[in-house]
């Protein structure tokens, strides 16, 4: 078997989760490559949707940003952002959306807004943040409206926290039936792909559970990087390693310059 990088493992794992999917809301970086890989492998009818207003993109090069002109040329449709957010996302046409963040908690809630200083209250921390992050972009409504949310994040104690500094995009909120009771249209986070393991969410409590460890990773390594006591989902499995065909597609066609596969 070919040697593979941590990023390749994350990309391949995310792409396989798209098996049979028709529509995916894509971000740049790893999700973009994962979606293009899925279209070549497990999801041949996958249409890539970008919040910049593109439906059915066929990028001929790796886009640096979600507004790259390569997403426009050769796309099925390019529309206004009112149409993209209104007709496609709010209209319920997005099956899977990829999100990430600086912080995630046990219920898959995401923070992309601020890292708090020592101020104390949310309002004061927001007014004088230690680090000002980019904010929501489309993430808040994507987290609420997409049928399913898949999250790609490197595992780290700074990222997987017991308590978010700010809740930008709602996951399962405080767990249980919180989403349903508030009438959120989408099902929320279903999967978290990291560089060490894959998490799913408990059907009842909606808490994040370790579903599989990547080859060579010990359970204790995962617990070390998670800011709460994390449980496993039944019998722990090993994530399947990338195949030669997947690695070939990534290195020869999807990211020949090795910008994201690392």
């Amino acid at each position, binding site marked *: 078997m070919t040697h593979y990088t941590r990023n390749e493992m994350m990309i391949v794992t995310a792409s396989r989760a798209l098996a049979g999917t028709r529509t995916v809301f894509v971000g*740049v970086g790893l999700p973009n490559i994962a979606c293009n890989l899925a279209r070549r492998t497990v999801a041949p009818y996958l249409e890539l949707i970008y*919040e*910049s*207003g*593109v439906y059915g993109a066929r990028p001929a090069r790796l*886009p*640096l*940003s*979600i*507004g*790259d*002109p390569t997403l*426009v*040329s*050769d796309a099925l449709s*390019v*529309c*206004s*952002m*009112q149409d993209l*957010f*209104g007709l496609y*996302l*709010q209209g319920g046409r997005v099956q899977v959306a990829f999100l990430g963040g600086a912080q995630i908690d046990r219920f898959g*809630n995401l923070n992309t*807004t601020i890292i708090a200083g020592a101020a104390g209250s*949310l*309002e004061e921390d*927001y007014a*004088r*943040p*230690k*680090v*000002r*992050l*980019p*904010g*929501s*972009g*489309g*993430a*808040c*409504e994507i987290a*609420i*409206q997409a049928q399913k949310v898949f999250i790609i994040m490197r595992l780290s104690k700074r990222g997987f926290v017991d308590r978010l500094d*700010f*809740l*930008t*995009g*709602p996951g399962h*909120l405080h767990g249980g039936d*919180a*989403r349903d009771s*508030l*009438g*959120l*249209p989408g099902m929320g986070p279903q999967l978290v792909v990291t560089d060490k393991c894959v998490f799913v969410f408990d059907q009842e409590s909606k808490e994040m559970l370790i579903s599989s460890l990547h080859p060579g990773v010990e359970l204790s390594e995962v617990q070390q990087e998670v800011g709460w006591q994390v449980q496993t989902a039944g019998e722990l499995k090993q994530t399947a390693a990338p195949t030669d065909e997947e690695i070939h597609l990534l290195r020869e066609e999807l990211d020949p310059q090795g910008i994201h596969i690392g």
Partner: protein
Amino acid sequence: MASKVMSMQEAIASHVHDGDMVAIEGFTACICFAAGHEIIRQGRRDLVLCRMTPDLIYDQMIAAGCARKLIFSYLGNPGVGSLHAIRRAVEKGIPAPLEIEEYSHFGMVSRYTAGAHRLPFYPLHSYTGSDLPRVNPKIRFVESPYDGEPIAVVPPLNPDVVIIHAQRADREGNTHLWGLLGVQKEAAFAARRVIVVVEELVEEQVIRSDPNRTIIPSLIVDAVVKEPFGAHPSYVQGYYDRDNQFYLQWDELSRDETSTQAWLEEWIIAVKDRAEYVQKLDASAWKRLSPGEAFAEPVNYGRYA
């Protein structure tokens, strides 16, 4: 009808005043840096700047001290990382404190839509469970009169002036735009005054030959400026590529206040206009950014005479 064509200097001098609410829109594509630079050169102050993605143009304008407030939905250098000058203003008050009013993308789109339609608010499925409404009291929830369920609403956004960059327009301001359309149509219809900046001026007949592509009619346009390469380092579909190298370069140089101010001095203050900026850029840059050709199949509108 009279021509509305004027120079960028005239357009900014006539239509952008201290204290105005200004939106230079364009989502990654067609961001009119030429207009932002002219606003900096003319020394405008206390502007309220609106943009979904402030991008490098507002990072530069805020570093130059033009703004007192920013209304936005994504505060990043797209595809690269942070906007360091705006972060300095928010985190440390350098060069001056900056008031912020923050939404999500769909929230900003909805604000412009309410503004364009002259509606009192616009409803959207967003913000439930998010902390954003706690830090922005303008995001509210109302009860739907039909099913009794709560729904998020945002107020209209009606900028004093909206500046749109596009491929081509006629002299009155009927404007063809293609590629990413962003929120330009809604923003322009919401505005009190509209400046259209284009790569090419064309005859009215060219516009009339393809009316589906007219995103902005002259009805709402106050000034037309011809400014080739006016969107650099952003891009214009079919005309030039995004200068990703510059977006990466800005990430480095803007981390430091002194090198940021030095860049503003060299590339904006000491430069007379966009034509001089274009000349100052290495000629090889324009070759590097040339996108080649990919024409659409012509469509037949029919004559119906």
